[in-house]
């Protein structure tokens, strides 16, 4: 006995394509075209979830993405997806779904006891109930609340699917492909304008697919399918189905999510699961339709109580009967359609209960003609039944509640009116306004290039939707500069379907005025009484109400509950609804998984990786890498199994200091500077003098920021007349270039100088150590004797026909050179140097040894150039030329930067044998009394074990450090309870006179 609730025929399902699926371990059948919700209803399964707080049984309230109840866990394993709405899940073969927030089973849920204790769980209960004792906050209360109020459980494995992002530009974006949206698309597309029309459903048509409507003499379904055919054949139109426009941002930037492969079990190889679109339309037409709101009566959350429109959708679109004996309860004309559609599908309609005393005569006559009872001036006061509605009690809307009429039924179709979907309009920065005639909010004055049409504007009449859509399409095309041809003026004609005529009914009286749970927000279990309590406790503004009760804060964003909540709040305050206002809607309109925002940039692809030309050699030679910005640099080179970081950098340092070794310095920023004013430009950038640097020489320079703080350092070489070559630190390669661009373009445009980055063009190799000259003499074609090529010399050279540039500069403090070769020859040059030096036992060294040697030599680097230090603090003030202007000069003379007591760079030696220092350690005089940070006199910036000195050394910033060499102090690291006694010393630990580099 499967699918016993299918209609005999009809619906947009394919009855020739049965689909087998599982819910809570039980196997069911549905058809292609079903949603999980419609297929379960076809099988008579209405109980879908337990509510968030009270664990009450819940069924399907809607047939769309606004459903507050029908959230399930979809799929299993790594594709497990919690909190997915069964009303939007397209059925596929092998689908597995499970209910959430219940134990041990959906039908018997132990936590339903919360329903009994509900007085303890009133509005803001978590602010009131779980207060004492404090020790219970994390150990008891949080554990309890998390367990009780859980939603689904996320998968712990990595998501195996692909997600991506895409951009689209158009003249007109239409959000929603119902009748209004289609009319807009047709009108705009006919002019040649670029049109994108998006709809969250797999079919376009919107309400046409769930109603029995007629356009141009055809059924609405047929008409929509024909327009789909026409639109999808046009080059200037992109029809995006399964795509929800979820965000409206500044400058008409729109975000949409395309569920490319959510309707299959596993996407085909290479295919993406979901795609995030950023769309840049000139104009937006919001044709997002409207959402029906339920009537608010006692126990209005029971399975079997649905929105009247959802009942029509289940019957007309999915061919399923949501019940056998139905009551339709309404405050407007629209819900009468539900009675006719139910009747048409063979469902017994026991009564239409209309809260209005004087219903539409025409509709009354139509009901009478098919013998459906019409009850006026009454409404459903309560629904009764255990896990499904069994009967209703009707009460008079005039407050007469003492003799409720009982009617047995298994389906209540409820309509409290329609709320235009003003979400995107509100996201655009506009303010929706209350419209009395429809008792809801409609779009207000536009703040961006958008307009709403049709039901989204509060026009519920089909012909109005078509007319408004058409007009908006024409307008958008005109605004984008397209000519409207006469034939584009034809608007489709709809068959008249009567008027809407709502008389608001916000909360129903209860039978005998007893206390009932009357739910407003079913997803967060917020009742009428919670809103009333919040107002009484002073949370009577709409924003406070929302936060205090959590109304509208669930994954459905309160689509079915917001207006009802506002109305109840207004009633409590005694104000009209417009006085209370509405909250601001924020993206996303529907829940969007984070994975699609990340797209491909996950795992190792999170950031691009920059690799030097030596990278592959480094990989082959077991280098251990370290990230330096986006660069991957070799940190050290293990030679055998078990080699530690310490083993390696000490060995590499020793071979450099004692012999010769190579390091890849490609990552340093390199800037080519040319022009007659190049020397003057450099002279203004750097603090030292650049006007008289001869060709063939390099000079070390330091530059400041405008505010006088040290910015960057490096060498710049004079290659030929008016041609210079600057190097920067790795970290500041781009900032220095933009600093130069800024000053050249805005401050000194008169300087005739041009420059560009050549970082990528050159591979940089430093050859350091007492034997470096001997090694280079074997391979280079130029004389590099100390006389011919002294310290700071620069020249062009050839190595095996590779033309490069040689610089005699040193970061290690040893006799050293830097060789630059064009990058495509980088690895070749590197391996040839190693080959040539084999008999000398040349080795490579990584950034760890590089860092060790720079500390031993006392060179400041990024850890000291931290944006807070001046050149004086760094001990470089002697370089500054007081007789010229340079960037930052004036501000570097501010009193605060010159006064005593500033932190200055010094060196430290560990006085405790075998104990190294720690970066970030604070420097204190007397660590015994350490009780506040105010005692800190500075900190360690960089540390190493010094193979040359045989002890732990460091650089650091110490108050008045320059005058304290020879003193002792404690370096403390309270987090690890560490304390090391250190001697303060000059920051240059080896060769203070610089004899080695000049040898």
């Amino acid at each position, binding site marked *: 006995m499967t699918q016993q609730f299918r209609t005999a025929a009809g619906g947009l399902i394919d009855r020739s394509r049965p689909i087998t699926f599982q819910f809570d371990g039980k196997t069911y059948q549905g058809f292609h075209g079903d949603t999980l919700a419609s297929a379960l209803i076809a099988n008579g399964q209405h109980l879908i979830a337990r509510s968030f707080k009270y664990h009450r049984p819940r069924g399907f309230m809607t047939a769309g993405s606004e459903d507050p109840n029908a959230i399930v866990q979809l799929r299993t394993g790594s594709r497990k997806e919690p909190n997915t709405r069964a009303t939007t899940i397209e059925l596929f073969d092998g689908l597995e779904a499970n209910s959430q927030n219940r134990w041990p089973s959906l039908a018997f849920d132990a936590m339903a006891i919360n329903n009994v204790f509900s007085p303890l769980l009133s509005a803001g209960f978590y602010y009131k109930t779980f207060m004492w004792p404090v020790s219970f906050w994390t150990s008891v209360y949080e554990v309890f609340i998390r367990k009780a109020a859980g939603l689904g459980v996320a998968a712990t494995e990595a998501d195996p699917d692909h997600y991506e992002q895409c951009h689209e530009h158009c003249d007109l974006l239409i959000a929603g492909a119902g009748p209004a949206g289609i009319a807009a698309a047709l009108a705009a597309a006919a002019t040649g304008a670029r049109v994108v029309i998006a709809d969250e459903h797999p079919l376009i048509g919107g309400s046409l697919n769930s109603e029995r409507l007629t356009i141009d003499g055809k059924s609405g379904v047929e008409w929509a399918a024909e327009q789909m055919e026409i639109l999808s054949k046009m080059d200037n139109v992109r029809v995006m189905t399964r795509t929800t426009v979820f965000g409206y941002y500044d400058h008409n930037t729109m975000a949409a999510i395309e569920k490319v492969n959510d309707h299959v079990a596993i996407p085909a190889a290479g295919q993406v699961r979901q795609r995030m679109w950023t769309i840049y339309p000139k104009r937006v037409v919001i044709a997002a339709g409207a959402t029906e709101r339920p009537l608010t009566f006692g126990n209005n959350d029971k399975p079997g109580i649905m929105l009247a429109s959802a009942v029509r959708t289940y019957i007309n679109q999915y061919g399923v009967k949501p019940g056998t004996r139905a009551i339709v309860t309404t405050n407007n004309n629209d819900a009468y359609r539900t009675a006719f559609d139910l009747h048409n599908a063979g469902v017994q309609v026991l009564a239409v209960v209309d809260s209005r005393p004087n219903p539409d005569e025409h509709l009354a006559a139509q009901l009478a003609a098919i013998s459906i009872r019409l009850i006026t001036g009454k409404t459903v006061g309560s629904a009764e039944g255990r896990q499904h509605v069994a009967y209703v009690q009707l009460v008079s809307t005039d407050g007469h509640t003492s003799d409720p009429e009982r009617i047995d039924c298994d389906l209540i179709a409820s309509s409290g009116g329609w709320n235009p979907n003003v979400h995107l309009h509100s996201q655009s920065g506009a303010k929706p306004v209350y419209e009395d005639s429809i008792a809801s909010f409609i779009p207000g004055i536009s703040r961006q290039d958008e307009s709403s049409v049709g039901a989204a504007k509060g026009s519920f009449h089909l012909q109005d939707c078509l007319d408004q859509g058409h007009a908006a399409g024409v307008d958008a095309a005109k605004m984008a500069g397209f000519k409207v041809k006469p034939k584009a003026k034809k608007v489709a004609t709809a068959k008249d379907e009567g008027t809407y005529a709502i008389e608001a009914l916000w909360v129903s009286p209860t039978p005998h005025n007893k206390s009932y749970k009357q739910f407003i927000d079913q997803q967060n279990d917020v009742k009428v009484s919670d809103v009333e309590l919040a107002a009484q406790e002073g949370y009577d503004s709409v924003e406070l109400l929302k936060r205090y009760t959590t109304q509208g804060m669930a994954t459905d964003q309160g689509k079915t509950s917001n207006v009802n909540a506002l109305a109840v709040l207004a009633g409590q305050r005694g104000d009209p609804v417009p006085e209370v206002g509405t909250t601001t809607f924020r993206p996303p309109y529907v829940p969007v998984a984070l994975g699609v925002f990340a797209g491909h940039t996950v795992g190792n692809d999170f950031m691009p990786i920059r690799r030097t030309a030596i990278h592959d050699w480094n990989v082959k030679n077991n280098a251990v890498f370290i990230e330096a910005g986006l660069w991957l640099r070799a940190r050290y080179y293990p030679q055998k199994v078990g080699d530690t970081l310490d083993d390696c950098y000490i060995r590499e340092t020793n071979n450099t200091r004692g012999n010769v070794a190579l390091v890849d310095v490609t990552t340093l920023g390199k800037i080519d500077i040319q022009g007659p004013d190049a020397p003057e430009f450099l002279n203004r950038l750097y603090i030292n003098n650049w006007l008289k640097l001869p060709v063939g020489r390099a000079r070390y320079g330091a530059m400041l920021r405008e505010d006088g703080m040290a910015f960057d350092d490096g060498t710049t070489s004079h290659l030929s007349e008016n041609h210079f070559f600057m190097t920067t630190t790795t970290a500041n390669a781009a900032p220095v270039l933009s600093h130069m661009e800024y000053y050249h373009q805005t401050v000194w445009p008169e300087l005739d100088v041009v420059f560009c980055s050549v970082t990528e*063009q050159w591979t940089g190799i430093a050859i350091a150590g007492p034997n470096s000259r001997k090694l280079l003499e074997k391979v280079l074609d130029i004389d590099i004797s100390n006389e011919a090529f002294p310290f700071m010399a620069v020249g062009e050279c050839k190595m095996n*026909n590779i033309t490069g540039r040689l610089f005699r500069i040193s970061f290690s403090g040893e006799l050293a050179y830097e060789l630059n070769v064009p990058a495509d020859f980088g690895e070749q040059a590197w391996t040839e140097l190693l080959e040539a030096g084999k008999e000398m036992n040349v080795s490579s060294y990584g950034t760890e040894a590089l860092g060790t040697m720079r500390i031993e030599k006392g060179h400041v680097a990024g850890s000291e150039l931290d944006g807070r230090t001046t050149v004086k603090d760094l001990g470089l003030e002697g370089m500054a030329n007081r007789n010229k202007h340079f960037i930052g000069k004036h501000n570097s003379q501010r009193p605060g930067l010159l006064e005593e007591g500033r932190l200055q760079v010094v060196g430290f030696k560990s006085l405790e044998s075998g104990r190294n220092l720690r970066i970030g350690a604070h420097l204190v005089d007397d660590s015994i009394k350490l009780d506040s940070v105010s005692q800190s006199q500075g900190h360690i910036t960089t540390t190493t074990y010094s193979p040359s000195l045989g002890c732990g050394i460091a650089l650091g910033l110490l108050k008045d450090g320059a005058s304290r060499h020879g003193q002792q102090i404690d370096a403390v690291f309270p987090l690890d309870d560490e304390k090391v006694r250190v001697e303060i010393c000059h920051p240059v630990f080896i060769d203070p006179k610089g004899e080695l580099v000049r040898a």
Partner: protein
Amino acid sequence: MPNSTQTAPVRVSPLLVINREAIVDCQGLRLEQRPTLTAIQVLAFAKQFDGVAKAITKALGVECPTKPGVCNSKDSIQVTWTGPNNWIVICEEDDSLLAKLKMAVGKKAAVVDQSHGRCGIRLSGVHARSVMAKNCALDFHPDFFKAGNSALTSVAHMNALIIQVDDESYDLFVARSLARSFVHAIEHSCAEFAKA
């Protein structure tokens, strides 16, 4: 000093992909490395813009563009506007180009070799535009971006020079160090078209 009998060095691409062999090759989409390139940046000194543009035009026989977003090409040479005073000239490897340009512009401009610093790939086929749309926020509709158009912008979160070659082909040039990450990212977005 070494003896001088060595052979000419061989340029090694950061992509280690044999020239002309496609990275992606499927119905309607091809992603391949451009052959080893010569890329020369020309930066005009103050008030020399017109003269430099004329000199480049004369030296190369390709109209040097003077407006943003334009790349003029002839045979394998592409001359692209890359800034208010600068261009990049790209062609298949030609060791004489640097000297030729230096000669042409004389003291009016700086001429800087970037051949080893740029890596070129070509994306072509009916799906090429879709792949571009996934990685770049520009509008590649033929009414707005067509053959001969260029842009310096972010592609797959990396700085790139885009040159549209013909209706269905784009040349993309990125920094050498980023070449592998770049190709990897583009390859990802080709996957949906690369049916087995």
